[in-house]
């Protein structure tokens, strides 16, 4: 069942021996020991597992790892600069204290980064739309919206 699969994550290529049908999320968390993407539903309903696939925010909980070959995957870890400085979106979440338990935060930050890449000056409706796939039960969305607005400001 297992096969060699090569994926590129956060700018690094990884050759892995896995069941090629394994959803990307499990490979990221268990083989590559990344903490950013999280298991929330495994059904592409909650956004906890978001990653950037060629710059687009996508859930990783169902796509088979083999379909990711040749695509550039970025996780929450990959947003931090090499010198350790936070990405402006990450920084804005800290400044706005946009979390309670923080379990949704991966999906929120990843979605916000993708949104701001596509739309430098999103209005509130566009921000809400951009975060629509990510559920937050602690209900910190108002803070998340403020964080995205702040990040949009610093990115300009």
């Amino acid at each position, binding site marked *: *069942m297992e096969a060699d699969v090569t994926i590129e994550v956060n700018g690094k290529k990884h050759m892995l021996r896995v*069941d090629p049908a*394994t*959803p990307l999320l*499990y490979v990221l*968390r*268990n083989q590559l*020991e*990344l*903490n*950013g993407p*999280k*298991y*929330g*539903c*495994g*059904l592409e*309903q*909650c956004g*906890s597992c978001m990653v950037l696939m060629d710059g687009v925010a996508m859930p990783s909980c169902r796509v088979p790892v083999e379909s990711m070959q040749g695509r550039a995957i970025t*996780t*929450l*870890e990959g947003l*931090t600069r090499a010198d350790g400085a*936070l990405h402006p979106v*990450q*920084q804005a*979440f*800290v*400044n706005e*204290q*946009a*979390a*309670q*338990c*923080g*379990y*949704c*935060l*991966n999906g929120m*930050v990843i979605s916000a980064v993708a949104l701001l890449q596509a739309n430098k000056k999103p209005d509130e409706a566009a*921000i*809400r*739309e951009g*975060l*629509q796939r*990510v*559920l*937050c*039960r*602690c*209900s*910190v*969305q*108002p*803070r*998340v*919206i403020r964080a995205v607005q702040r990040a949009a400001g610093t990115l300009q």
Partner: protein
Amino acid sequence: MKSTPFNPELSRRKFINSLGCLTIGFSLTSTPWASAEPLLAEEKLPGSLQKHPRIDAWLEVLGDGRVRVLTGKMELGQGLRIAIAQVAAEELDLEVEQVEVHLAETGRTPNEGYTAGSGSMENTAMSVRYAAAAARQALLELAAKQWDVSTDRLSMASGRVLWDASKEPLTFAELLNGAQLEQEVKLPVRLKARSEYRYVGKPILRKDIEQMVRAQPFYVQDLRFPGMVHARVVRPPAYEAKLLEFNESTFQAKVPGLLKVVKNGSFLGLITTDEYQAVQGQLLAREHVRWSTPKPLPQGQPLINYLKKLPTSSRTVKEKGAVEVLDKPTKSTWKAEYFKPYQMHGSIGPSCSVALYDGQVLHVWTHTQGVFPLRDALSKMLGMKPESLHVIGVPGSGCYGHNGADDVAADAALLALAYPNKPVRLQWSREEEHAWEPYGSAMWMAAEANLDASGRITHWRYGLWSDSHSTRPGGNAGNLLAARYLEKSFERPSSGYSGGAYRNSEPYYAIPNLKVDSHFFEGPLRVSALRSLGAYGNIFAIESFMDELAHRAQKDPIEFRLMHSEDERSMEVLKKLQEVLRPEKLNANEGIGVAFSRYKNVASYCAVAAKVAVDKKTGDVRLLKMWAVIDAGEVINPDGVKNQTEGGMVQAASWTLKEEVLFDKQHVSSRDWYSYPIFRCGEVPEVEVVVIDRPNEEPLGAGEAAQGPAAAAVVNAIYRACGKRVRHLPVKAAYLK
């Protein structure tokens, strides 16, 4: 060389010298103690401190100059750690960064029961404040002795005691010389003067949010141990289904990486090398297992009709004056009946635990709200001595009450015992979390009241019908899901009406004649504590009813509540809300509703307003904005109180507008986020929270104060917008058309 005088009160316990170096940042920010007019606390010690009076039960001085605070509570996303660090840093004149907070762990931290009911500020934060203040005094005395000077001349900063410029300051670690402060905290305790506060009352940033955005390992879900294996449990199709047959050999052949199948009565689990193998195995097992078909659930009728037919046991919660006149309604009598369905916690991250049995001790890493009660329940379920269990609290996804956290820990414990010497990780699936967690009980409430000619309430009668709101493990094995399926199974204990159903069932208003009764039934679904317990349903009913009465009395809803308030602090939050709402303008299809309660009638005061727009053609409700004014006594961290209040009211609005656990004849059918939808970003209102700080009052938890008022504010707003009174939750568009 410094010498420390022998002090018999100091223990011989060694520092945990994590850095092995004593250099730390040093700043001269502190004022000498003598000028600070300390507050003398003489009355009584906070509850948790009474049970664990030794200073070193609460804090340890580390060799690197930092202080570790030990708390028996858990971080649930409520910002517990920063609040505790602020309080400790304040009394000891440390930097907040120098305080490390160690979360609940058996054998290590004080036993503080559950992190629930918004009690952490009153208990833990205050215990830490007193312990830190006592530690300060003890450290000053040690330095005074060493320098042969009065403590009045000394001050503290950044983990050192200072005298005058010619003397090298002494670090806490040097003063203790390898020991910890073993003495008990005794009254009176000199607390720092509030005018000297540097941290308490300020919105100090939480440190953990940076760890989260950096994707550092943080959650129990992120624990990875060498050799860790993965497990899943195969759930029955119904609560009472029994395992009849499991075709183990054909199953085994089909699951790659399968290490072990654990079968104990109707409890069936599997352990694999990789996580995805366990996930697939869990699904596949369904084809290899046969279960009994138990009695069907009562579906196919409105739930309220079914609940009304259930036998009940009743008790009077409060009786004052006489209410029999309500038996003969007049035209000044008003009656209404309300209903709330089963609602779920709906944590975003399904429950998770890691367990390891090393042959002697079973270690369990868990995001439970109570490591000690869980340990006791596990000890009974497993027939092991409590000393053989080591339960370690690690943050998980927000839980909002008793969700699957304890259950998954029990699952992992059972599997780890059957597979020793390997850390066994188990995370529930989304479907398990949705379908097996204990829900907030469905409730129905009946209210009646008489008004006099001036519009005052003269008589009030209220009854509530509910299942229990607390079936936490509490040392009881039968409250752990897995325990009911074991060969030697444990009965689910009935907690009766002690379970929090009547929380806030007595209105916090001046009403001369009043009777409140609580009726307990056993409903069809598994239930337990959901944020604010019965207060959500009771305040939804009481505050909707207050609005209905205000309307009949032709009074403004806030004025009507003020007319019936006697407590200055109630009045102040209501008046503040009135002021905040004054500039608001409304369009034709919009309305603003308000509601108020004092949580548990003894804790935080909270007034909430909601603004909605109702589309009369479709019945769609848009929640535009919510406001809250909260008085949670002394505020340790205003942004923490704000965050909790914002989140609480928006979550409660989601419950109110959208949520209802549904079931078919077999089991719960709300099994994912499509069949149990909650607010998405587009539905979340704008929020505004005003925090009234009362530095001279006891600090009160804020995490649950907004739940009930938020529900009533939303339905009251809908009434103002379209004239339809919603008494049956969740709000349904069909009713508003």
